[in-house]
């Protein structure tokens, strides 16, 4: 009996949920004009599921039939997951129906490789093209691109999509060869390379000042690494993402803690990767990109290549570099302030703005930072010095209260 739309949606949304990315931020701002939909630039989370994740886009696969056999994937050909396939018009209609009800910012469309990379990529492009050209859809579209698909199809995808992504999946090529034997690391990297070139061409100032009709993937591209399905260490993962950021102009490298799919493979761990590992990787990724930390500095704090799961990486660094502190809140440079545990980028900006107007004491600092608990041992103000607090061997225990993980990604 053929599946109805509801059953297809259940199967193909379930199969797509392992992709961490669901953002609709970045790129160009648009209004509906003669069509429907807009992009505000900041992205909107229209709901949150009980896993704490943002629901911004309708995230589905076009089909979960797949000729590949990547062991970590619920849709691999050897899995017994129920299979379904959307028609192009069904995805288009579903997107528009949910969009009109203000449930989503747009569509995130991925797919199993049903016959070949090119046919699958062409189907994905067809959906995006129909939304844009037949229905005047001006909301957000994120297309997953298929490794090994022809460069022309990738180019076309970038004309309709706001964001493109292609997952590298594994931190190391050897792991990919083992767990996804039919995928080619080179094909994935070539896809990312092609998209980077197009994105850079598209954002280069055009000659004669004439704006291009359509920018290539205005919200850029991203990729994802599965954490914990292979034996790679956190250091392997961070090195790999540092190379990816440097190479392919990525907006984001997503880390996705491996979680069981209900269709296990003998090659994989039966236990899910602890979510805190994923969280620590994101924190370290942030230190590298926004806090001025270098990879060698982070490496020091990774004995055995693994991040400390019990404390955040910035605190770990601070505790092993106590001679670096206390930092004088009224004099220290931005770079130094960013090293203080408990001070985020926004708090540091506020401190710098406020100290132009007068000296900051603890009371002012509290107003600028929210909580002083973690900050205190590491800073100096006219009415406070940490003194021996900073040298206490038990400082770590004092600061690490058992605390619920909450991550607003």
């Amino acid at each position, binding site marked *: 009996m053929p599946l109805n739309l509801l059953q297809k949606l259940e199967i193909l949304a379930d199969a797509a949920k392992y992709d961490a990315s669901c953002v609709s931020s970045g790129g160009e701002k648009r209004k509906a004009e003669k069509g429907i939909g807009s992009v505000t630039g900041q992205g909107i989370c229209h709901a949150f*599921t009980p896993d704490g994740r943002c629901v911004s886009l309708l995230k589905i696969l076009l089909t979960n039939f797949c000729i590949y056999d990547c062991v970590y994937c619920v849709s691999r050909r050897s899995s017994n997951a129920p299979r379904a396939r959307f028609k192009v018009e069904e995805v288009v209609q579903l997107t528009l129906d949910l969009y009109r009800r203000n449930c989503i910012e747009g569509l995130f469309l991925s797919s199993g490789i049903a016959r070949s990379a090119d046919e699958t990529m062409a189907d994905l492009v067809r959906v995006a093209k129909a939304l844009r050209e037949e229905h005047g859809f001006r909301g957000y579209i994120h297309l997953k691109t298929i490794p090994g698909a022809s460069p022309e199809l990738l180019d076309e995808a970038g004309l309709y999509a706001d964001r493109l992504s292609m997952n590298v999946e594994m931190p190391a090529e050897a792991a990919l060869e083992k767990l996804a034997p039919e995928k080619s690391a080179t094909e994935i990297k070539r896809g990312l390379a092609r998209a980077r070139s197009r994105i850079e061409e598209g954002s280069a100032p055009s000659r004669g000042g004439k704006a291009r009709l359509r920018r290539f993937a205005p919200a850029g591209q991203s990729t994802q690494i599965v954490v914990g399905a292979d034996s790679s260490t956190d250091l392997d993962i961070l090195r790999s993402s540092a190379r990816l950021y440097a190479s392919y102009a990525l907006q984001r490298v997503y880390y996705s803690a491996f979680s069981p799919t209900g269709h296990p493979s003998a090659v994989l761990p039966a236990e899910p990767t602890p979510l805190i590992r994923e969280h620590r990787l994101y924190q370290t990724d942030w230190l590298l990109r926004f806090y001025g930390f270098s990879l060698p500095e982070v490496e020091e704090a990774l004995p055995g290549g693994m991040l400390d799961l019990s404390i955040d990486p910035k605190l770990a660094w601070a505790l092993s570099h106590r001679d670096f502190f206390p930092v004088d809140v009224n004099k220290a440079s931005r770079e130094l302030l960013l090293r203080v545990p408990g001070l985020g980028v926004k708090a540091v900006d506020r401190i710098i703005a406020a100290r132009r107007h007068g000296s900051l004491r603890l009371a002012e600092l509290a107003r600028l930072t929210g909580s002083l608990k973690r900050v205190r041992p590491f800073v100096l103000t006219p009415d406070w010095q940490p003194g021996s607090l900073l040298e206490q061997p038990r400082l770590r225990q004092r600061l690490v209260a058992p605390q619920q993980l909450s991550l607003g990604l």
Partner: protein
Amino acid sequence: MLSIPLGEDCSVEEFRAAARHCLARGIAPEDVHFSVGGTLPLFAEEAPERVSVANVRVPRGYANLVPKIVCHSEADRFALLYRLLWRIHRGERHVLDNPADPDAAKAQRYAKAVDKDIYRMQAYVRFAEREIDGARIFVAWHEPQHRMLRLAAPFFVDRFSNMDWLIATPIGTIAWQGGVLAFGPPAARPAEAGDTVLDELWTAYFRATFNPARLRVKAMVAQMPKRHWATMPETALIPDMVRAAGARVAEMETTAPETPPRFAERLAERMASISAQSGELLPLDVLREEIQSCRLCPLHGPATQAVPGEGAPEAEIMFVGEQPGDQEDLAGRPFVGPAGQVFERALLEAGIARQKTYVTNAVKHFKFEPRGKRRVHMKPSGGEVSKCRFWLDREISAVKPKLVVALGATAMLGLTGRPVPVTKARGQVIAADSFSILVTVHPSYLLRLPEKERAEAEYERFVEDLRKARDWCEAA
């Protein structure tokens, strides 16, 4: 103490009039009470104006905050705004730039709360489709915390301009019909009438996209406060989803690896046959594919792809550079980046057609160090060059050039296996086994010269070396 009653839905203009009135009379913030919930008085002349306020210029920061803070539901919002205005007027023009100032901090907090409320309206309004008098209209009920409907409306207009819609709230309604925006008085909550897209498809999607192995209820509630749940149909499922999560995960963890479905084997065979297909290939094409799968040294890991040489299969001149750069690594072709452009221009000036030559590198993978969003070129080591000679030798044997032009020291190392200083050997033709070598600089050297005159002179010398190569080949 002067008491000024302001309406609950006091507009920016009304507040401004009241504030000007007080300011003009020199009434200090502590001497005025803005009460909320009354009607706006006409400012009768109880006291004469003492200062002229015709041109009260406020900083942009203040002007931007007023429309937001006026919407806030806290009763002290007007007092806060007036206090800030008073301080600005008394010379503290930059008070809002100081986030440590208690008034400034509070103002920012109020503005942020209103922004958040607007954002949540944009996020959590759910339109249900209705037919009213034969026309399709999308209706929603939403319960905001602040009186920000006028600030929230443009989002819905920009997004849904081709739809008729109505958002009803306890503090007023926004309607968009036939391209006209209208604000109305508070409406009663519309009766539930069902909408199949919301009630079936959307809720099914919400359930399916949830991963029970990642249960984090607190994080969800922090982002999506329960007060909005009543108007979001999908949230009715949450208690059951949370309750069942543990059992679902336990079941997953104990499920034994399954036997693959029957089609899996058939597909595996088809995959194998696809990769076995390959047509007739030229020797150089075979070589290119072999280079692509090279694992002789670790450089293949970070690089995108190997960059084999390209050009005429029977070229008389072969050019050998150092290694692919950033652009070459992306494109998979040698000499297409900035150095490649210099090279191409110089070839043209020397009267050499690139397509008649063969262009390659001593090392086939890009060696780099990640530095933020850039890749910094790293010189290949002697070991890497020597490993990669395997491929360079094969390219030379396949193309059989008369003359090989070594562009720089690494190329020389790759060709001869010995370090040869470029400056000494430059411009000379050296006989090797089956071919001759002419040494010159690498075109990227020309790009690195800071002085314009020197760069131009060196470029001329480079072109001269290329001419020598051309003449030598023609003579040979």
